[in-house]
């Protein structure tokens, strides 16, 4: 293909934005009932490749439930979704093998050490050469001194680092992350934010759920606002920035109107 055409395509892509790029996560009318309670109601969105997508909402708005549906941790009541073309409805194990997940609660098995836990997660995921990859993460997240400590004796922050490492151990195409920064100190938060931003530059995708709006505005390319299980808004952070709008103002406005 001539270079001029490639240039034109890249310009067009930049103009029309990520919406027309390849989607790696698709959700159509996702609904989840827990008994009488409807936790998520008819949520649809699509996440293009190579972005940090933020799912924002208050506590109990349904963010974690959506993550659990996307990753096949709970059954979908209505609707469907797919990650990298695989539906968790038909093959939840395949979905979880393709992506990295950091759950809402950091729950590594109590009696494994940190390194054993990474080996455990790596074996289950079928990842080879775990030693070198694990060492890189221990150094990067600055907890190499906790390698041999039992998980039950780790602080919450260190457990969060461990969960981060297991999710990104093999540089998955898509990472689904629930409240990634919540237990980390400011220095580590900065490091993780920078990592997430650079991660997508290599064409990978990060789906995060958070209620910390400053973080979302800083690291997300695209956001969706969820309120009481329904989707109120999807849009690009760049557009908000261009308009000089703050994400927390938009969020409060949306929630108060709902």
């Amino acid at each position, binding site marked *: 293909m001539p270079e001029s055409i490639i240039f034109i395509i890249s310009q067009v892509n930049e103009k029309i934005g990520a919406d027309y790029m390849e989607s790696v996560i698709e959700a159509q009318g996702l609904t989840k009932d827990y008994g009488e309670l409807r936790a998520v109601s008819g949520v649809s969105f699509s996440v293009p490749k190579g972005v940090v997508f933020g799912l924002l909402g208050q506590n109990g708005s349904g963010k974690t439930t959506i993550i*659990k549906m996307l*990753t096949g*941790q*709970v*059954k979908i009541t209505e609707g469907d979704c797919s990650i990298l073309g695989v539906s968790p409805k038909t093959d939840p*194990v*395949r*979905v*979880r*093998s393709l992506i990295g*997940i*950091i*759950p809402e*609660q950091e*729950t*590594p*098995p*109590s*009696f*494994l*050490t940190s*390194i*054993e836990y990474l*080996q*455990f*997660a790596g*074996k*289950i*995921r*079928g990842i080879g050469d775990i030693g070198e990859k694990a060492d890189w993460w221990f150094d990067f997240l600055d907890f190499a001194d*906790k390698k*041999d*400590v*039992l998980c*039950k*004796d*780790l602080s919450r922050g260190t457990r969060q680092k461990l969960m981060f490492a297991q*999710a990104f151990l093999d540089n998955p195409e898509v990472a689904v992350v629930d409240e990634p920064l919540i237990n980390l100190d400011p220095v580590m938060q900065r490091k993780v934010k920078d990592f997430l931003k650079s991660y997508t530059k290599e064409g990978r995708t990060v789906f995060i759920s958070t209620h910390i709006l400053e973080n979302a505005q800083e690291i997300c390319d695209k956001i969706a606002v969820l309120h009481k299980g329904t989707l109120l808004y999807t849009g690009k952070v760049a557009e908000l920035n261009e308009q000089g709008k703050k994400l927390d103002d938009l969020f409060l406005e949306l929630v108060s109107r709902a």
Partner: protein
Amino acid sequence: MFEIFVCMFKEEWRMHSTLFGNLNFALFPILIFGMAFMGAFLIPFTARLMDVSMLVVTTHSMYCIMGFMVGSFGIMGKEMMNRRFGQGSLLIHSARSLPVSERRLFFNFVLKDTLYYFMLWIMPFCLGFTVAAPFAGINIYYPLLLFVTATLAFLLGMSTVFLLSSVYSRSRTALYGILVLIGVAFAALYIVSGDIVRVMRLFMLPSEIFLNFSYPLLLTAAAVILILFIPAVFLFSPETHAGEKRRSAALYPLYDCLSRLPYIRGRVAASPSAASEKGFVYAAAQKELTIISKDFIDLHRSGIGIGQTVFSFVLPVCLIWFVLSVLSDVLMPEQIYMVIAGVTGIIASTMYTWLTEFESFSAYLFLPVKVSSIIRAKIITFSVLHVLPVVFLIVTAVIGGVLSSAIFGIVMALSVSYYALSIMVRYAGLKPSLMLYSAAFFLRYSLLLMPVVIFLLGLSFIATEFSLAALILIIPSYFLLKGSFVKWDAEDLPNF
């Protein structure tokens, strides 16, 4: 003060009803009542076969063990809650966040446990016995006395575990010293008296009160409980102060060791012939082997392996052995041995709960692993643990002079154990502790298991060799497990 007590009471109820379902849990005392009511009619017949004092000691020992278990949960509750529910805790651990002293919390906790478990376990049992007494020809004095003595036995167990754990928190050596001292005293008394029932009556004072009531004895039992309990209140701290424990990496070496076993090859060979299917099965088998390695590390490092072996296997089977050994006047040694084997099979099946009870399944939620793979891994670990019942049955066969029956006993025990396991897996999946308090599950489990065991024991009474008929249980066990894998894969992963 009273508010703390009420909140702790609600907490206990909600914890149980969350785990087992409101209705099922509420029905549990009714089930106990029914069993005690019907059991009372068997007492006159049992009295003809065995010494009543043995029955009394056994009943009180059971309540003492329950007190022991309840006390242990109180102490280890925070760790267990964290492992099962994520970041959870019990009110007893709230001294840091509420302006209440640890001692006051602990005092309320003991009061709550006493009343709660009196209502859950002791009252329904004693009421069932009381209501049945006039019809079964039993003097009403005995069931009424049981209310007092069973409660004392429960408190004896609970205060003992509180004191032992207080000692443990300060010195492991001191704890081991005390345990050795108790063991030596028990053995010495047994050697001197030659009567196990008499020794047990001495250790289990509430049962002595039941058999020979006197006020001085009652006061002595109360004093013993207080003597155990008061130092525990002063020494005990529910907060754990353990530092960071370090261990060298054992997962890979263990995995490599286990992978030499023919498990993966066997799973692949047994799978459908298509190459793609074999690939999936190979990957699943590797995951299962990883989980098995983790389970063994868990059992070793958590102390659950040793603790459960002693309290959930060795103690119960030894108790059953002692109880059954007094039937030697009416049963042949081979018949007694087969009963021991059948009961050992049932007790051995509960080893599945060791592997699942304190496991946090949240750790698997986000990993690419099926529930059926987790269950398969647990079954393999369960199978390895069956070395324990096999060794126990060989020992009892040697001591009982029925070594030639050992193989039949082992076949009976293993068949019963796997059959009971398959029922547990089919109906409770990775939550077999449902059996503890879910009336519906317990009934189903009992109805599917007990008639089969009784029938097989009947056959083995005719001729020991007939116990090989127990091998037929492989068929229902296989189909129950096969159905379970499909069933549990189709449901949401257990969220704790």
